[in-house]
């Protein structure tokens, strides 16, 4: 059940680098959202920029009726968002898309996030930890400036490993380097990932080789966010089709897909 909600901004703070965390009082969304789902946010009142912007829900608290998004300033919409003040309202549509599977019975989960891809992961990790699943989180960031995010995951009860491009925190390099060094005995039962496509490609290759199932959240440019316009097509394996794939909608059949089925253009 999709709805519109007017979210009241409770906080909108820089968390280092180009990243911001926006906390919104949004009771309906907070009570309905599932990990991996996203909201479609209207960041301007004028026709320019025109479209809403999709953001994964980073965290939520049903009791406090709050949701949080973690976003990077990469263009005009996010620039405008970064200037919004607490007390202002923003219109959003929620809860949108598919969610990560958490009704699972396994022991060890590996959660991998890179850059903006950290966006949908905190809520997921909290749920996994709550279920008693041992959760290792690999975070890839540009710099250590965003170290406050590491705290978010540590507080959630996850084991956290960090890779930064500049080596200022954790190992220097890509987060996927942790995978290459993963010993047999460390093999998780299930992997969740979100991040730039090259990262997801590496995760997919590694998981295939290791025969580990998993889920990933992917991004595509969006129009409606509700399945009406077919803008957000991505290539997904499909038996229905002779050539083995079909375009699916990131906003309805995704953003969370099973790790195996996504076809990346390389």
């Amino acid at each position, binding site marked *: *059940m*999709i*709805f*519109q909600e007017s979210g009241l901004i409770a906080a909108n703070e820089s968390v280092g680098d180009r990243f911001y965390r926006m906390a919104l009082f949004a009771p309906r969304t907070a009570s309905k959202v599932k990990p991996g789902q996203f909201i479609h946010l*209207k960041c301007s009142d004028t*026709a*320019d*920029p*025109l*479209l*809403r912007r999709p953001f994964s829900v980073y965290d939520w608290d049903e009791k406090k009726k709050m949701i949080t998004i973690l976003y990077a300033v990469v263009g005009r919409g996010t620039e405008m968002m970064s200037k919004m003040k607490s007390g202002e309202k923003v219109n959003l*549509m929620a809860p949108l898309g598919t969610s990560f599977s958490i009704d699972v019975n396994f022991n060890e989960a590996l959660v991998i996030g890179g850059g903006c891809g950290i966006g949908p992961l905190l809520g997921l990790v909290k749920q996994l930890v709550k279920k008693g699943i041992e959760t290792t989180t690999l975070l890839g960031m540009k710099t250590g400036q965003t170290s406050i995010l590491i705290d978010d995951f540590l507080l959630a009860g996850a084991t956290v490993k960090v890779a930064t491009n500049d080596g200022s925190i954790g190992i220097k390099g890509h987060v996927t380097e942790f995978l290459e060094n993963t010993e047999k005995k460390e093999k998780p039962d299930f992997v969740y990932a979100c991040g730039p496509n090259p990262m997801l490609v590496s995760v997919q290759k590694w998981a295939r080789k290791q025969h580990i199932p998993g889920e990933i959240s992917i991004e*595509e*440019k*969006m*129009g*409606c*966010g*509700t*399945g*009406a*316009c*077919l*803008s*957000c*097509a*991505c290539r997904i394996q499909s038996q229905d089709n002779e050539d083995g794939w*079909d*375009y699916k909608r990131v906003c309805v059949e995704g953003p969370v897909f099973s790790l195996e089925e996504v076809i990346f*253009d390389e």
Partner: protein
Amino acid sequence: MNNPDLRVSIGEIHMKNPVMTASGTYGYGEAYSDLYDVNFLGAMVVKGITPEPRKGNPPPRIAETPAGILNAIGLQNPGVEKFILDEVPRLMKLQVPVIVNMSANTIEGYQRLARRLDEVEGLSGLEVNISCPNVKQGGQAFGTDPKTAHEVVSKVRKETKRPIIAKLTPNVTNIASIAVSVEDAGADAVSLINTLLGMAIDIKSKRPLLGNVVGGLSGPAVKPVAVRMVWETAQVVNIPVIGMGGITSWQDAVEFMIAGASAVAIGTGNFTNPVAAVDIIDGICAYMKENNMEKTTDLVGKVSIETIE
């Protein structure tokens, strides 16, 4: 004063108000059904159907431009048979006229679609999208030449008793002449405008922002062009004109109606405000009441033009 009478008829399509959805922006009517009762609509136009399934274009399929969007979906759709099987049963249950937007690469394709859809119960009309490239005659759209436009519509006319709406492309020198031509061919109404052909390039990668290189411009940016074309067309045809292009508010809808549109369709506007259609129905009603208009004909085409000097 009583509430104004918002009813409008497009041929045999009887609508409780003049607000429809624009093809390709409303899926098959399911995408917005959580947000409001779609039976509030005057009519629903569903995503373009083709004779065979089409995968559509490679992403990115959408790019934002100043006050507009470019799209190049590439008519992704399951094909007419799967549409009839999977979507029509649900659509039939609605209390709102459902209009099927149809496209083909050949005239025979249009005929085949019309014939097939004519057999299907529960559909109220056909919107013939003649903005698609005419593969046989070298890629120009059927709708860019009055003669081919005439041919498509008259051939479709022979295959169906359902009301036919001819959807016109704005990428022409003289849209009114195309409208006159399809009227003559038996169209019950014309709808305009489809998207303006456009392009955007990422200056970092030097690549087009759309997978398909070019795409269709829609949204508020195109509104002045659409209003002008509706005005030009409404003056020369005797069939209803359905106006669209950049409508996001009831004020926009009223502007189109004053210009000569008997009904309006909401496209890109659904993306920014998912309940736009409902808001617009309410707004038109309030405007008519405030201006003592009893029926939509008190509004349609009432632009007041004095020749000064």
